[in-house]
C-alpha cells in the first residue's frame, strides 16, 4: 500500500495519471492550478505517456477536450472558477455532443468582488449543462472520484462528460494522507476506453457535425441527455461496487455519517462537510442525535435514495456554500424538491448560508445550527434562512466602508479645487 501526503491538486493529477489519460488540453495561466503543472512535469520526465497541448483559453481547452473525446481517446482537463465560466459555452456544447471525458474544477468564489477562496457558485453554474457532477470532500476522494468519473462518462449507456469538484485551498493546497492505488489494479477497474462508434482514423477520414434543428428534434436530443443522466445512477452503483471490491473504499451517491438514529441532519457538500462531521461527533458526545448527509453526486441527483434516507427525521438543516441571488441556497432548493410530497418528509427544512468565498464555519456555529434546528423541530416552526455572519465580521465590514467613504470624500474635495 502506497499511502502518501499529497494535496488535492496532486491527488487530481494522480487520478489523471492512473486513468492512463491520452490527451490533456490545458489553459496554462491563472486560474489554472498545479494539477496541470504536475501532469506536464510527469509527461516531460517520461513518467506519464500523454499528449499535453496548451490552449489560449478555457473555451478552446474545452473545445479541444470535447473534440478529442469524440475521436475516442481518453481526455483529462482541469480549470477553476472564472476559467470554468469563461469556457461555459463549451461546457454546455460538449455535453450536447455526448463527448465523454473528465474535467476537474477547483472551486473558488466568483468575481465580483474577488476572492481566492472556495465556494460552489462556480461549479453550480455548470449544474444544468449535462455534465455529470461529483463533489469530493477529501484528497483521497478527489483521486478516487476521477477514476469513477471515467467509468461513468465512458459507460455506453451514459456517454457524457463528467466534472469532479474539489474546494480551493481547503483541498487543493492541503496535504492529507492519500492511498495511491496500484496501477495494474486501476487498469482492471478502468480498462482502456472502448469507444465503439466514437472513432477517428486518419486513413478513413470522416466528419462529425451538429445540425441546426427545430424544437422537435432539439427537445428529443436534450431530453436524451437527461435520460442518460438518469441511467448514470445505476452506472454509479455498478462502478462504486467494483471500486470497493478492488480498493476497499465505499462511495455511495451521498455520504451518510451517523445518520441511523439521528433526529436531525446537517446536509452539505464539499470539504466543509468534514467540519460538520467533527461537529456531529462533538454533539453526539453531548447527547444530541445528529448526523450528516453529504451528496457526492449532484448530477444525476440521487432523489429517491435521498428521500428515503431523510424520511422520518425530525428536522433537516441544509448548509449551502453558495447563493442563488433572489432565491437562496441552491442545495436547500434541491432537497426541498426531492422531499416535496413524500409522506414522511421531515417537517422542518431549515436553510443556512455559510462559507461564501471561503469564510470559515466555526465549530460553535454548527452547534448553534443544531440547537436552532432542534428548537424548530420542537416548535414546528421553520426558522427564516440565516447567513452565517457575525457582529465582529460586520464591524470589520463597517471599517472598510468607512475607509472607502473617506477615499471618496477626499476625491470629491480634490475635484472641487
Amino acid at each position, binding site marked *: 500500500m502506497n499511502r502518501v*501526503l499529497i*494535496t488535492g491538486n496532486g491527488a487530481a493529477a494522480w487520478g489523471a495519471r492512473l486513468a492512463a489519460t491520452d490527451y490533456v488540453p490545458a489553459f496554462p495561466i491563472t486560474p489554472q492550478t498545479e494539477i496541470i503543472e504536475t501532469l506536464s512535469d510527469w509527461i516531460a520526465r517520461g513518467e506519464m505517456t500523454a499528449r499535453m497541448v496548451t490552449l489560449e483559453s478555457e473555451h478552446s481547452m474545452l473545445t479541444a477536450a470535447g473534440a478529442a473525446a469524440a475521436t475516442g481517446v481518453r481526455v483529462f482537463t482541469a480549470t477553476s472558477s472564472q476559467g470554468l465560466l469563461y469556457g461555459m459555452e463549451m461546457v454546455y456544447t460538449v455535453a450536447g455532443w455526448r463527448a465523454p471525458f473528465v474535467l476537474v474544477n477547483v472551486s473558488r468564489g466568483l468575481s*465580483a*468582488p474577488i476572492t*481566492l477562496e472556495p465556494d460552489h457558485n462556480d461549479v453550480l453554474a455548470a449544474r444544468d449543462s449535462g455534465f455529470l457532477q461529483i463533489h469530493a470532500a477529501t484528497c483521497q476522494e478527489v483521486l478516487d472520484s476521477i477514476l469513477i468519473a471515467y467509468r461513468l462518462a465512458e459507460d455506453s449507456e451514459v456517454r457524457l462528460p463528467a466534472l469532479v469538484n474539489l474546494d480551493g*485551498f*481547503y483541498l487543493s*493546497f*492541503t*496535504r*492529507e*494522507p492519500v492511498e495511491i492505488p496500484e496501477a495494474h489494479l486501476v487498469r482492471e477497474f478502468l480498462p482502456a476506453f472502448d469507444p465503439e462508434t466514437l472513432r477517428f482514423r486518419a486513413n478513413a477520414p470522416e466528419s462529425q457535425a451538429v445540425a441546426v434543428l427545430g424544437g422537435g428534434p432539439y427537445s428529443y436530443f436534450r431530453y436524451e441527455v437527461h435520460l442518460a443522466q438518469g441511467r448514470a445512477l445505476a452506472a454509479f452503483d455498478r462502478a462504486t461496487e467494483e471500486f470497493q471490491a478492488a480498493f476497499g473504499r465505499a462511495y455511495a451517491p451521498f455520504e451518510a455519517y451517523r445518520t441511523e438514529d439521528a433526529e436531525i441532519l446537517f446536509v452539505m457538500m464539499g*470539504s*466543509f462537510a*468534514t*467540519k460538520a*462531521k*467533527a461537529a456531529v*461527533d*462533538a*454533539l453526539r*458526545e*453531548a447527547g*444530541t442525535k445528529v448526523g450528516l448527509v453529504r451528496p457526492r453526486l449532484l448530477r444525476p441527483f440521487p432523489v429517491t435514495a435521498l428521500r428515503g434516507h431523510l424520511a422520518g427525521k425530525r428536522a433537516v438543516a441544509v448548509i449551502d456554500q453558495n447563493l442563488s441571488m433572489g432565491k437562496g441556497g441552491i442545495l436547500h432548493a434541491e432537497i426541498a424538491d426531492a422531499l416535496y410530497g413524500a409522506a414522511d418528509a421531515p417537517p422542518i427544512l431549515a436553510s443556512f448560508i455559510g462559507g461564501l468565498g471561503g469564510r*470559515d464555519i*466555526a*465549530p*460553535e*456555529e454548527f*452547534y*448553534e445550527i443544531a440547537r436552532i434546528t432542534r428548537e424548530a423541530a420542537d416548535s414546528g416552526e421553520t426558522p427564516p434562512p*440565516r*447567513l*452565517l*455572519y*457575525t*457582529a*465582529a465580521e*460586520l464591524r470589520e465590514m463597517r471599517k472598510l*466602508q468607512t475607509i*472607502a*467613504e473617506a*477615499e*471618496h470624500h*477626499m*476625491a470629491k474635495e*480634490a475635484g472641487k479645487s
Partner: protein
Amino acid sequence: MYRIRFHGRGGQGMKTASRILGTAFFRAGFEVQDAPRYGAERRGAPVFAYVRADRAPIFERGVILRPDLVLVADDTIVPVPGAGVLAGLDGHSILVIASDTPEDVWRSRLKIPARIVVIPLPEGEDAAERRHVGVRLAAAAARLTGVLGLGDVKGAVEEELKRLGPEATAENLNNAEVAWQWAVPHEGLVSERPAMSVADYERPQWVDLHAEDTARSAPIIRGEATSVEVRTGLWRVYRPVISHDHCVKCGLCMAYCPDGAITPNAQGFPEVDLEHCKGCMICVAQCPVHAIAAVSEADAREKETQPSLAGQGEKA
C-alpha cells in the same frame, strides 16, 4: 490533536517548514493535514502555514484558530496586525520566535498569556531571506511536542528537500540537528489542547444583514487616481535612457508609452517618469532615430550611486 502554525514572509520557507513537520508526524504514524495560506501575495508579504496531527482521522479544516504552538520565522511581523501571529494564543499556547531580541523583552512587549520562547537566529543568517530558519523551526516544533524522534525529522527533511539536491539537504539536516539540540530543555513543552465541550460553547453573535444604499453596498471604491501611488517602476529590469544628442523631439515615444510615463520637459525633450516606467522598452523599439537605449537597471543604479561618475552626490 496537535495544532501548529508557522508564520513568516513569502520566500522564507514557511510552507516547506509545515511540510517537514507534517511529514515527520506522518512518518511517526500520525494522521496529518498541512497547508499554506496566502492571498495574492508576493515575496516578502506575511504568510503562514499550519499543521494538524492526530492519531485518528482529522475532520477539522481550515485556519487553526486555537493553536497549541505558533512559530515565527521573522520577528518583524509579530506586531503586524494583518499577519495574525498572535491570533488565538492563550495560556495553553507556546509562542516560539526566531529572534536576536531576548525573551524578557518579548514578554514585556507582547504581554500575552502564552509562554514565549526565543530561538536564536542562525549565525550569519541573511535578515531578509532567512533561508535556514524554517527547517530549524520545524525541527524545534517536533521536539517541543515530545512525541517525535530525530529520525522522523531527518527523514522528513530528506523527503521534502531532495528536489534541492544533496548539498542543500545536508545543510538542512545539520540545521535540523542544531535546532533539535537547542530544544532539549523544552522537550514536551507543547501539549494537545483538550477538546472543546459542546455544553459550554460560546454562541456565535450572528447578525441580520439589511439591504443598504447601493452606493454603500456595492464593492466599489471611488477614490482619487490611486494608480499613481503604485510605484510600478520597481518592476523594471531595463531602463530607457534618451540621448538628447540624437532626439528629434518627434514625440512618438510619448504617444506609444502604454503607461503615459513619458512627458516633454521645458525644452521639449521627452523625459521618463522612472517611478512608473515598467521597462517595457516599447519606446526603444518605436524611436525612429534610435535615440533611446535600453540600459540594465542594475547598471543604471550603480552609476547613480557613484557620485564621481553621475556627478549628483549622495541620494537619500
